[in-house]
């Protein structure tokens, strides 16, 4: 029964082997080099020409789509290509300190000031503000929707039912969250408090899957709202304001930093044009960021 099958299989294998016998290493190297050459040629043109400015920013800013809306205009006007590296605020600050980027757009005022103080970065300018909100499952097991003040909401979270998912990644949002818990002497205890160690989107998704609460910036929440069941549980408190600043790496510390180009970005983004554009940016028909560099009439 098996023999004809086996025979056929062996026949085919031999055929394949015979074909592969004729492979040549020289040819493989040639093909590989050719492929590298062709693929380089295809992408090289895009690489070289413009000055590249490296900007580290938070995932929340990047994923809101704001930068894709904003930066092309700046790039077009100035002939500068802005490479956006989206990381947590903690890492963005670290990258600035190490000199791996030229400019940062972040939202962690205390940490920013510390870095300015230490002399690693200069020319900190406020750009815009949006706000944080606490989101949670529609059933609201902690009963946040009934609370009026932020402190009350936080103690409900701490004392009542429901789980809270923290970013736990030293990002701007995480720094903000830790500051908030100080109002009620620390976060919930035990397994009602979880750290995701991931970005805002991933953390929101974990909260959604686990039917838990989390602190999020409005931009990321709006961008993801359609894909999950989380609803706003508490918002609109002055303490939940989320101010963004643009800061330039100190050229005295990192000589290679592209200070002049970075300053052009700072002036453009804080100019009337840049600020108007930010104010006009909408996600799902909601205004996400309120410009703060120039007082709005």
């Amino acid at each position: 029964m098996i023999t004809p099958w086996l025979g056929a299989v062996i026949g085919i294998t031999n055929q394949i082997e015979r074909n592969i016998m004729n492979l040549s290493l020289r040819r493989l190297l040639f093909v590989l080099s050719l492929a590298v050459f062709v693929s380089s040629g295809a992408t090289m043109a895009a690489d070289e020409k413009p000055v590249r400015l490296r900007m580290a920013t938070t995932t929340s800013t990047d994923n809101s789509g704001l930068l894709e809306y904003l930066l092309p205009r700046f790039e077009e006007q100035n002939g500068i290509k802005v490479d956006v590296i989206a990381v947590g605020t903690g890492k963005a600050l670290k990258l600035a300190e190490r000199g791996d980027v030229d400019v940062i757009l972040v939202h962690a005022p205390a940490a920013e000031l510390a870095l300015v103080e230490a002399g690693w970065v200069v020319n900190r300018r406020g750009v815009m503000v949006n706000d944080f909100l606490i989101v949670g499952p529609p059933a609201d097991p902690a009963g946040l929707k009934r609370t009026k003040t932020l402190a009350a909401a936080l103690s409900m979270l701490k004392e009542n039912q429901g789980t809270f998912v923290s970013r736990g990644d030293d990002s701007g949002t995480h720094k903000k969250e830790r500051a908030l818990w100080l109002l009620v002497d620390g976060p919930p205890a035990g397994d009602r408090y979880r750290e995701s160690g991931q970005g805002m989107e991933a953390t929101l998704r974990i909260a959604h899957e686990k039917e838990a609460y989390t602190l999020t910036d409005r931009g990321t929440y709006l961008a993801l709202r359609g894909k999950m069941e989380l609803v706003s549980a508490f918002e609109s408190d002055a303490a939940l304001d989320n101010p963004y600043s643009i800061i330039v790496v100190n050229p005295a510390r990192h000589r290679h930093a592209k200070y002049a180009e970075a300053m052009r970005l700072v002036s453009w983004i804080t100019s009337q044009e840049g600020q108007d554009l930010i104010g006009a940016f909408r996600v799902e028909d909601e205004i996400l960021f309120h410009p703060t560099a120039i007082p709005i009439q």
Partner: protein
Amino acid sequence: MSETPLYRLERVRRIVDGGETILDIDELDLPQGGLTAIVGPNGAGKSTLLKILAFLERPEQGTIHYRGGPVESRDLVRLRRHVTLVDQAPLLFRGTVLKNVTYGLRVRGVPSREWPTLVADALSLVDLSGFEDRSVHGLSGGETQRIAIARALVFKPQVVLLDEPTAGIDAARKEMVERLITELHTIMGVTVLFSTHSLAQAHFLTERVIHLAGGRIVPHSIDNLFSGQAEAGLVRLRCGTTVRTRSKRTGPMRFSVPAASVEVVLFSDRDDRADGFDGTITRMELRGGQVRLVLSGKLSLRAEMSPEEFQRKDLQLGSRVTAIIPPDAIRLLQGEA
């Protein structure tokens, strides 16, 4: 001989990792243009000797002279281009016959326009014309053997070494290979060495036969090889008889007795000395200036002597004789019994 030998080996020893000496040659000259057979059982050192002659291996001790000059390690790569060795079970490179046969030309930088003629010539030598584009995948054992020979001959080496070239191929092909060996030597003037199990084949093809046993050259051109049991001072042969020896070694062993050491006297002239074997002269021939005899009796023995001695003793074909093996002449050999 006044002419410088092609190869001259002096006190050559090949010692393997375990410390065992697998080849131990005091002296060996191989003439230019000669045809030499190396005969011996498995493990006798035939392949090792051929590899050394092919400059593929270097002996741990001793010197090799090639064309009169001593061979240093740095010469090996250069000298390899003069010599080629065809293995007993040759390995063909993957791909086509053409690729295999042209390999020696390629490494020597022979211009590729000369290849087709050279390849065609080499393939016709081994009766495999038109095999150029065949894949080596699917060649028979005999074809593989002959392609390997063609591959070795295509670059016209000065010395061709063949390790058991007729082992494992059928009678017809064997005859072809034997004819090829003869032609290489006589028509093309190539120096040829081949190894074989068969004493008959060796003597059929050439007068020059080297006997190798246990890594040593058995010093005469013809030897009697026996196996049996060694006891103290005594060797008990397979056929039942015993001979005396000087050796004190014991156990199963192979022995050789040089034909020239065998004393032959007419049965009527014998004295009462022990260790005599009675028999009849069944063959005799004159070779290399010596008379060779085959004695048949309880023990079949080869003997060799000068024509003068032969005449003095009044020996003839069919004579009843007694053969005496002197205890000194018995050499105990390493290797399997």
